[in-house]
């Protein structure tokens, strides 16, 4: 009898294992489905998009939609594809990430190793800046960018993204340097090293991981931004997300779903690539952005 109880227990245990695995796999399929549909649709002809159904593999595999999205699709009045906007996004994200990361590192260094009264307040002020709804700065920002003569330009967007990325980069570096031993810094000071020398020689060489986290976090955020791009850079200097939305929502005539999906894939690829290559750091950034202090 004991044996039959034992087999029953093994039976229920196995039942639970199967249930757990099934649930997890069903969820995985649901997370993958939209990506699957995007990819297969982007490799179909428009006829096949209309005739077949969306989950099927392409019967006549073609990269036409991709080249159309990249080079000839019409966005607004010009029909040059999204390639120009893709480069706009690169030209916007790369400098903005570099500048915000650099300032963030220096700020974090000052706020942990060169403290002065009120440092906590300053950090709090910067941190709160990460969380404001950006709707509350749109009109003043548009005015200021206009006055500075950089409205509707990539330079304007770089400025915007640096300013609103500073809070996060400072947060990341501050929390990282907080755990960096003060003794090393103090020893270097006694040896006569100055402010920048200590930063260059002692902190920066061991900052690799947090630089990667910050760069990935900022790049993803800035690349994916839509609100600022739509508000401050209409027309030729618009970033990728804005162009994608224009392509999808305002195309007249026949809706070329395959081209839309190819364009969406192109917009998604840089951040997906970052995620695949450095997923661990991506998650660390998200977590650090979520759990403050």
């Amino acid at each position: 009898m004991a044996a039959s109880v034992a087999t029953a227990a093994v039976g229920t245990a196995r039942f639970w294992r199967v249930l757990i695995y099934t649930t997890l796999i069903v969820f995985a399929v649901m997370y993958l489905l939209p990506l699957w549909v995007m990819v297969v649709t982007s490799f179909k002809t428009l006829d096949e998009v209309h005739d077949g159904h969306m989950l099927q593999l392409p019967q006549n595999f073609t990269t036409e939609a991709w080249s159309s999205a990249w080079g000839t699709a019409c966005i607004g009045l010009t029909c040059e594809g999204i390639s120009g906007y893709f480069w706009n996004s690169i030209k916007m994200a790369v400098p903005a990430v570099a500048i915000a990361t650099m300032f963030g590192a220096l700020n974090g260094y000052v706020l942990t190793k060169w403290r002065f009264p009120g440092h906590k307040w300053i950090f709090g002020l910067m941190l709160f800046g990460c969380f404001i709804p950006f709707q509350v700065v749109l009109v003043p920002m548009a005015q200021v960018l206009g006055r500075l003569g950089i409205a509707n330009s990539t330079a304007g967007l770089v400025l915007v993204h640096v300013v609103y990325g500073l809070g996060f980069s400072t947060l990341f570096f501050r929390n990282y340097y907080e755990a960096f031993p003060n003794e090393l810094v103090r020893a270097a000071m006694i040896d006569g090293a100055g402010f920048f020398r200590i930063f260059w020689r002692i902190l920066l060489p061991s900052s690799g991981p947090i630089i990667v986290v910050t760069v990935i976090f900022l790049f993803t955020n800035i690349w994916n931004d839509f609100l600022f791009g739509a508000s401050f850079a209409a027309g030729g200097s618009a970033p990728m997300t804005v162009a994608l939305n224009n392509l999808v929502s305002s195309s007249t005539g026949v809706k070329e779903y395959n081209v839309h999906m190819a364009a969406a894939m192109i917009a998604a690829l840089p951040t997906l690539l970052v995620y695949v290559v450095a997923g661990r750091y991506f998650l660390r950034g998200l977590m650090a952005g979520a759990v403050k202090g």
Partner: protein
Amino acid sequence: MTAITSKARPTGRAIGWLQGQLPKLVLSPSLAAILVFVYGFILWTIFLSFSKSKMLPVYKFAGLDAYVRLWSQPNWYVALDNLAIYGVLYIGLCIAIGLLLAILLDQRIRIEGGLRPIYLYPMALSFIVTGTAWKWFLNPGLGIEKVVHDWGWTTFTFDWLINPDKAIYTVVIAAIWQSSGFVMAMFLAGLRGIDNELIRAAQIDGASSFNLYRRIIIPQLRPAFLSAVIVLSHLGIKSYDLVIALTGGGPGNATELPATFMYSYTFTRNQMAVGGASAVIMLMTITAIIVPYLYAELKESGRGR
């Protein structure tokens, strides 16, 4: 270790003073930028919300006029109702799904390393990409509806995207798809941080798995719950991109949210003061959630040292 004492050579005193101020000098451009672009701009917008601005900013004081007009717009109530539906479902379901997946993944799953990235990857996408993908996926003619028809269930209809009563739920679905994996990761990190001794002790006492989770493990996840609620409510209140890409605020104004309301009143409907007033209300809502949290976190980190 506050100020560094300069080894006072008389000629070097000025340089020494300058070096003492160097950290503050390095910090000051960032601080100035934040003060101007965050706090200055907030005050500026608050001022605009008390002005007569229509198409362009006009700096004539109009008292609470814009707020009165805001609260008499049926559209604003639509936006608030939608935010309530969207916010509750988005936060609630993200947490439910995230917690479920985290607990299941924590059962020594052999393929965990393969599954985790699948749950999390949507978080790397732009909301515009997500919106575009789901718009196609839920397309009433060619999307999931057609797939089900082809499978033989020909009376199946799924027209939520163009149904004014249901459209807001498509935004909820897409948003959950994007964020729930991240919530899973937060809970999983929380689960991995729980002291194993505690769990073992409860197991020895004969607690069932269900009770173990209900009484010991889930209560220990409080910090993860808190972070999740904060992050999700912050994302939810700001939601703009996803609505624009998925429904454009429509059909009609069925998926209007405060963020889309603010944008259209400010930039296309020429009621800048009303738009400003709505932005101020969004800010106040987020502030009420974030500031106590930041305050507690900063105080905590001070005590920990």
